[in-house]
């Protein structure tokens, strides 16, 4: 549905109700993003920094870092994903309940970064779908916070009601 769609449209009519429900559900999800800190390398320290006093990710209600994937909503992949680790990252992703989001924090997680070598996976998007990429090596905590706000915006625009009905096929994990 586009914004300039003014004429009556049955399809739109159907969507209107859904959109309202969407707005409510999205508001809820948007403001309660509990991260799963997938601290792999250097970026994990900046992830800690963003949770510490100066940057304080708790302002967004995101300081509830759950190490159990089942209780978290958003996986922050912070650091270099090696091939040896890739399997684990994927399994943890599989164990998270829907809806789930992934933030690739830093150059290594996004593309492999400066580590072009035999051991490093060239971007975590090879194994899990990524919602937000953060540049930097490592990104400053401000950049991470910005990414999380972008993620909130993204969640705000999802059609979550339809996703509720849809049963996604997931890997065993």
């Amino acid at each position, binding site marked *: 549905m586009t914004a300039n769609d003014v004429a009556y449209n049955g399809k739109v009519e159907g969507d209107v109700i859904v959109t309202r429900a969407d707005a409510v559900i999205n508001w809820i999800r948007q403001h309660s993003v509990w991260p799963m800190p997938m601290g792999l390398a250097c970026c994990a320290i900046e992830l800690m920094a963003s949770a510490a006093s100066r940057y304080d990710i708790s302002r967004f209600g995101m300081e509830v870092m759950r190490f159990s994937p089942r209780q978290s909503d958003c996986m922050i992949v912070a650091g270099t994903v090696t*091939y*040896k680790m*890739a*399997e684990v990252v*994927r*399994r943890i992703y599989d164990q998270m309940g829907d809806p789930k989001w992934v933030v690739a924090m830093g150059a290594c997680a996004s593309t*492999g970064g400066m580590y*072009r*070598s*035999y*051991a*490093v*996976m*060239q971007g975590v998007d*090879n*194994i*899990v779908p990524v919602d937000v990429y953060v540049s930097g090596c490592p990104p400053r905590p401000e950049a991470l916070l910005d990414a999380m706000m972008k993620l909130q915006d993204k969640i705000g625009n999802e059609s979550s009601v339809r996703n509720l009905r849809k049963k996604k096929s997931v*890997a*065993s994990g």
Partner: protein
Amino acid sequence: MIDEDFTKSLLDKHSYLTQRESIDWFTVECPGSELVSFVKAMRDDEGFELLIDLTAIDHGEGAECRFSTVIHLYSLVHRGYVRIHSLCLDNDKPSMPSVSDVYPAANWHERETFDMFGIHFSDHPNLKRILMWDEYPHFPLRKEFPLAGIDTPLPAADVVEVTKASVEPAPMMGGPFVSSNSGPISDSEPRAKDESWTERKEKPL
């Protein structure tokens, strides 16, 4: 400090040693067969209690003895290092006696050396890969192994099935670039040392 008297007496005591030129620490070459007893003597008699480092060098495929291991010992008495080189005589199946009985610290170093170079340490209690996963077929620090890596399947079949991921050679077209200072000028243009996959060459399958 390690002085000349000490090095002289050491060379006298162990006749199989040969001294090597070195710009920093006293360096000896010890044949592999004598390595364990020599290292034991160094620990017990000479006070070299710390095995600082154990690693290997790949001298390239053309070299007569392709692999050699390097041990660095540190002494709290002398406050100095001794470096021990030993050549692996067999190029195809390089092997070296393990010193992990003498220095438990060598255990992991030897595993790493095995992982990276494929040097087999005989009598090692637990010689298996330490950094790469167990099924990895290559030895990455050998000179013929490209930095970008070689296509290899990943472990965990179920994850691979879903993600279709495998070890792929990393792209090298972005650098880092180095130029060589010898040869014709066309060769000295800066380029990646490992060219297994560049914009000119297709990505290997």
